[in-house]
């Protein structure tokens, strides 16, 4: 119970825009859960509701089984990084952590510990106004870790990080999950989460489109797709379409076929005497899986409206 986030049927409207439309998912301990979706899908709104900053119109958001506003020393229950730029520029990094520590009844020692963890010990006494975005992200991570919480929630933590920083962040997040923490990381770029997330919650238009492990998603996205190399593209497209396949030209002399297994593809081509050089089962990347999922969501929404 401690290391979880549970969302049930969250709805939130901003004026005419329905930002959340029944957002439901659970974040479990011991893994990094990627929270992905295009900009405007409702990721940040969901996170603000989890932290009690915005009030949901309907539904519930529980952290460790309790609504956020009921938590005592909340930073020991969930650490969050929403906006790395939310700093008073004239205050030093250490003093920023110090007031946060004081608000939780923690001392200066804990602030120094997390500065060390985030690799900021050398700039502790510098004003945050001069920090790069990457340094601010690290300070935000330090603040999230201040209460040593079992749940962590980071909104776009890779933003503005240099390649070294991204590598550090990935290792850091994996390490936190390995300790048994629940880690929720949002991103609008699936590629950032590759090799980091164990589980993915894909959202679009304010609701969950897919909630599955990374392996399951890739398998599903790869589906029954087949890649075909042929010098006779036009004839192949016609023959395969007649056999009931959906065919897309994905390169010079390359077709990607869906809705038709590789065996039946070969049979159809052979029957029509169309030459081909290669038939392979397609393996989707995470990015492709994501694109497919979100595109479907858009189509579904468009269809539902008409």
């Amino acid at each position, binding site marked *: 119970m401690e290391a979880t986030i549970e969302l049930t049927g969250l709805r939130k409207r901003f004026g005419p825009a329905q930002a959340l439309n029944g957002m439901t998912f659970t974040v479990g301990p011991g893994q990094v859960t990627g929270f992905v979706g295009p900009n405007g899908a409702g990721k940040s709104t969901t996170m603000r509701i989890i932290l009690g900053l915005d009030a949901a119109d309907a539904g519930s958001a529980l952290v460790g089984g309790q609504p956020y506003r009921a938590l005592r020393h909340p930073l020991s229950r969930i650490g969050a990084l929403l906006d790395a730029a939310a700093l008073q520029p004239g205050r030093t990094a250490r*003093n920023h952590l110090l007031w946060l520590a004081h608000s939780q009844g923690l001392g200066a020692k804990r602030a120094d510990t997390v500065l060390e963890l985030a690799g900021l010990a050398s700039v502790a006494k510098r004003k945050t106004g001069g920090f790069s975005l990457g340094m601010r992200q690290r300070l935000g991570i330090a603040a999230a870790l201040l209460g040593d919480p079992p749940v962590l929630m980071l909104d776009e933590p890779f933003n503005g990080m240099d390649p070294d920083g991204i590598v550090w962040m990935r290792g850091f997040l994996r390490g936190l999950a390995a300790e048994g923490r629940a880690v929720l990381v949002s991103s609008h770029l699936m590629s950032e989460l590759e090799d980091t997330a164990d589980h993915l919650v894909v959202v679009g238009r304010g609701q969950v489109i897919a909630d599955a492990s990374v392996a399951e998603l890739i398998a599903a996205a790869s589906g029954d797709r087949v890649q075909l190399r042929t010098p006779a593209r036009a004839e192949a497209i016609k023959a395969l379409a007649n056999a009931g396949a959906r065919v897309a030209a994905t390169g010079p002399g390359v077709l990607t076929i869906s809705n038709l297994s590789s065996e039946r593809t070969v049979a159809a081509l052979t029957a029509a005497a169309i030459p081909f050089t290669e038939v392979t089962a397609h393996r989707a990347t995470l990015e492709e899986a994501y694109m497919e999922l979100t595109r479907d969501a858009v189509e579904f929404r468009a269809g539902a409206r008409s």
Partner: protein
Amino acid sequence: MTAIAPYRSPVTPGRDGFAQLLRAEWTKFRTVRGWVVGILVAVLLTVGIGLTGSSGCGFNSNGTGACPAAPTGPGGAAVTDRFYFVHQPLTGDGTVTARVTSLTGVYSPSGYTGAPQTGPGALKGYRSGVQPWAKAGIMIKASTGQGTAYAALLVTGANGVRMQDDYTGDIAGLPGPVSAAAPRWLRLVRSGNSVSGYDSLNGTRWSLVGTVTLSGLPRTAQAGPFTASPSSMVLTQSLGTVATTGAAPTIATAAFDHVALSGAGGAWTGTSVGGGAARPGGGNANVNGPGNAAEPFNGGFRPSGTAGFTVRGSGDIAPNVPEAADGSGTSPTQVLDIGTFLGLIAMVVVGASFITAEYRRGLIRTTLTAAPHRTRVLAAKALVIAAVTFAAGLAATGVTLLLDVARAGSAIPPLTALTEVRMIVGTAALLAVASVLALALGVLARRGIAAVSAAIVVIVLPFLLAYIPGSLSTGAQDWLLRIFPAAGFAVSQAFPAYHQVVAPYQPNMGYFPLAPWVGFLVLCAWAAVAFAAAAYRLGRRDA
């Protein structure tokens, strides 16, 4: 996937309560240099402006540069005690009676304050006219020394019969002016330490005006008729200039008859109480004939008829209102207010930005994440900003007032310790509550510019309009200082206003329409309403 045990932190959670929030907000405040500097600037402005102020002696300057020290009355407060007293000793209980048949006077309409242009039979540059608070009547006074206890029953130029005691006491008796056709009978009866005053139109039907108890009245006191006429005050003011006052000496002459003093048979002595040395045309002489004004400012007396006198006098026996023509010195409030006012602006800006800076950077979300109970966060913020501005205000106004009083010496009439404490603590509290009001406006407006503008319009502007002479009618200025937060400035008023002393009771002279703590409560009401609205909005609004 292998199941991993949920994380258990080895870090012991700290205490979670309001004290932790207070500490966090204090850490926030002290770690932003701009806010700390802003408060220091406020202190320096208050002290700096306060100490550059000048204080003068007013009309009673003796021309040597030193201000004459005001005498103090039985209560310890400064008093004005200068008039002409015709008296005999009265031992033990007894009665004084007299009939007043006329009270006339002369004054200088131009506010002339130079040496009196006197000549035989005339007072050049003067016109006939009696001051509204010119006084003629009978008195029982501990001695002819200044500041001693007394009770008096008297007729006035325009305020009817009054029973007055120990400089501040004032009870109304028969209304209307006195004349030969409508004389006033006056009687004082001493019984132990209490003195009762009776007035009558005919000397047979008496009515009690009032009974007062005088502490410090010796067994043998001085009793008899007296006359006083406060200096007139000419006020000139125009937009943007501080009101200037010109004070001019005046003289009143009263006719008494049927003067009777029980158990006495001695000779009447005339004394110019308060002496004449410091007065232009000093000296002391009897009035030798009607219209003779050879020594007009110290007064005199002349027997007339049976048991009658004509008594001529100048001056006043009343509380010392420093700004009055007969008052001495300057109220330190004026000096304190301008410095406080500038300090207030700085503190209001700090108070508003203590929250708007968080909105500007989005830091408010971090704050509310750390402490989800929003009203408690706001209360902690308000307490911290109030404590900081109160401490700074205490230091600033304390130093300013004490140094100012010390520097001015006798130019400022003595203040009681209680009044000084009220002025210092009250002004510090004024700054603290105004900063909380600004903080609440900051929550409502969220943007720094909007919040500071709102605070300026609500707190600063009404004070300026009320303070600058001629910017509005005095009635409108009074109302501004009754209903706007600037009413709180009343806590810095040094001396009370007295209806029986004519003076420019204006904000820029250090006088406010509401009583000190009432004015402060008006400010508190504003802050409370703004705080409640801010707490409501903060609690309901998405952060």
